[in-house]
């Protein structure tokens, strides 16, 4: 916490408003051998328009934490608040991009995006809603397959639609659970570009879990490192001070890049 408050770089966020606040968060799973504490004393403040990546070992509770933020998993202790009011269950103010694309395979890409748009813009005309869907599908490079069924497109394309679906409902917070984990490295790179492109325009506060150190550095304003479970908490926070918009090439050539990379790998191998 103190690290966050004294960090001068936070000031680059104009409003300096706290979007997502995790206070003393705790998660306990009861097991026959007694309670298993996954997370404890977890505190994290995320500013408006900030992009956070969370990195940590498998099974440390990253996904648990994210699904608690999404409201899909019950909170055992502490609280999570969005713009000061604590969350109750899932809602469209927090868009989620899941690890598997989870599009409805019986709907077209357009209908998949529409499902959320209809919910968020109930009073818009049909044309307006379609335009919103088309705009975001265009943004993620899916303009040629509005009317293809989700089951007919590749997994990378499905995840593009997943990104469009999440942005189209204009959430306050975007939660991403290893969204590119199941893709090959080429497609992953393309989708990182797509994601950051859309994000640069929309500036939606984002929290993303990843296993990939390079991905974490490329996308984030701050990389949050979690300690290994049980009783996982925030181990360290690394601000990434590259200018936005970033290009992969410029970052790879930047002197600080290897410093950041070393910091993260040291933490993970510690």
């Amino acid at each position, binding site marked *: 916490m103190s690290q966050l408050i004294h960090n001068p770089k936070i000031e680059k966020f104009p409003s300096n408003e706290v979007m997502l606040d995790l206070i003393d968060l705790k998660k306990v799973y009861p097991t026959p051998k007694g309670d298993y504490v996954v997370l404890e004393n977890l505190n994290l403040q995320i500013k408006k328009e900030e992009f956070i990546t969370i990195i940590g070992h498998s099974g440390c509770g990253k996904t648990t934490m994210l699904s608690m933020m*999404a*409201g*899909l998993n019950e909170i055992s202790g502490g609280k999570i608040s969005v713009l000061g009011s604590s969350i109750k*269950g*899932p*809602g*469209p103010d*927090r*868009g*989620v991009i*899941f690890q*598997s694309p*989870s599009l*409805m*395979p*019986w*709907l077209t890409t357009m209908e998949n995006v529409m*499902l*959320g748009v209809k*919910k968020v813009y109930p009073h818009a005309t049909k044309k307006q809603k379609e335009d919103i869907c088309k705009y975001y599908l265009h943004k993620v490079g899916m303009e040629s397959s509005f009317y293809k*069924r989700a*089951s007919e497109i590749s997994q990378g394309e499905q995840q593009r639609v997943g990104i469009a679906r999440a942005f189209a*409902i204009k959430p306050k917070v975007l939660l991403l659970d290893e969204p590119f984990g199941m893709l090959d490295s080429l497609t992953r790179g393309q989708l990182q570009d797509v994601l950051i492109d859309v994000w640069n325009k929309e500036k939606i506060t984002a929290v993303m879990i990843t296993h990939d150190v390079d991905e974490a550095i490329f996308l984030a304003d701050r990389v949050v490192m979690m300690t290994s479970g049980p009783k996982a908490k925030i181990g360290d926070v690394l601000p990434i001070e590259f200018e936005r918009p970033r290009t992969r090439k410029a970052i790879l050539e930047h002197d600080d890049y290897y410093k950041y990379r070393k910091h993260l790998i040291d933490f993970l191998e510690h």
Partner: protein
Amino acid sequence: MKDSIIRGIKFIGLGFLEPLIRLINKEEPKKNTKEVMRKIVAPIASVFIFIGLWQLGSSSLYNKEAAYKIEAATRNQGEEAAAKLKACMESGDSNCQPNTLPSPAQVYAAYQVLLEDHKQISADKKAFAEKTFEMNKKRVAQGKRAITYTGRPSFVDQIKTSLKTVFAGFLLALFIAVPIGIVLGLSKTLRGSINWIIQIFKPVSPVVWLLLVFMIVKTLTKNSDSDSSFIISFISVGLCSMWATLVNTAMGVSSVNTDYINVAKVLRLRPLQKIFKVILPASLPLIFTGLRITLSVAWMVLIAIELLAQSPGLGSFVWEEFQNGAMDSNSKIIVAMFVIGFIGFALDRIMLFIQNLVSFEKETI
């Protein structure tokens, strides 16, 4: 052109013709000749082998039965009667044929007879309708009942009646099992509390269902003149066959991919929206698998139920022919057997066709 034909035949479930079409188009002759052998020639050969074995079996049974009959005649009535019987048998007279498994040729002949019979009865019906047309008009105008044809139904009429019954039973099963299955799938509590009914009644034999339905319908239709045998048989068919759909629907609904459910939760879809936009489409493949089993079970139990309920249809046709006990009746029973088999197969294909139309998972045929 060729590709669209192939798509077409695959769509209607005749995908096995694909290599033949490719072969005609001189495409990869070596591979496609092999495929044609495997998918078309071999099955046709197996049909001939089947008929051959049947022929062998039936002729050996015929000889055994004939020898026994002649021996019995010699014993009871003397040499002269036996010789007469033998001559009668060899002449092919249907009155003295041994009563056993008919040969394929006899079955085919019986099929022709049934067809002729149907033509005859249809002509009679038509003539009757023409004859009574004017009179019926008058009677209806006077508020009386029209006179209807009450003659013996033909074989084809019996098939139609059976199809009507099975269709009514299937619809009943559909309208009971799918909604209940969805509700059970959605609620763990209900599923747990009703499970015993399903587990106990699922294995109950069609005959018992028929008796149960008979008990209830008999009382309910006491004062009405509706056709209670039809009602009894279609309700019994529905009750016997609905379990597969019920279990499959409940399972399909309760096991929808959690990712889809999470998406619905994040988008905060209303319960009805969630059911119709997410849960139902996701469980459609399993529901349809259930419906296919239901339809084939319905068709299978229908014969037994018609036979017992004395309601017209293929079941009672088979039973009456069996009671006749003559050799050509046996042939007619075998004809009915094939007809039942073919119709069952066709019904399953129709269901598969509909399933492929509505479902997002394209099932391989």
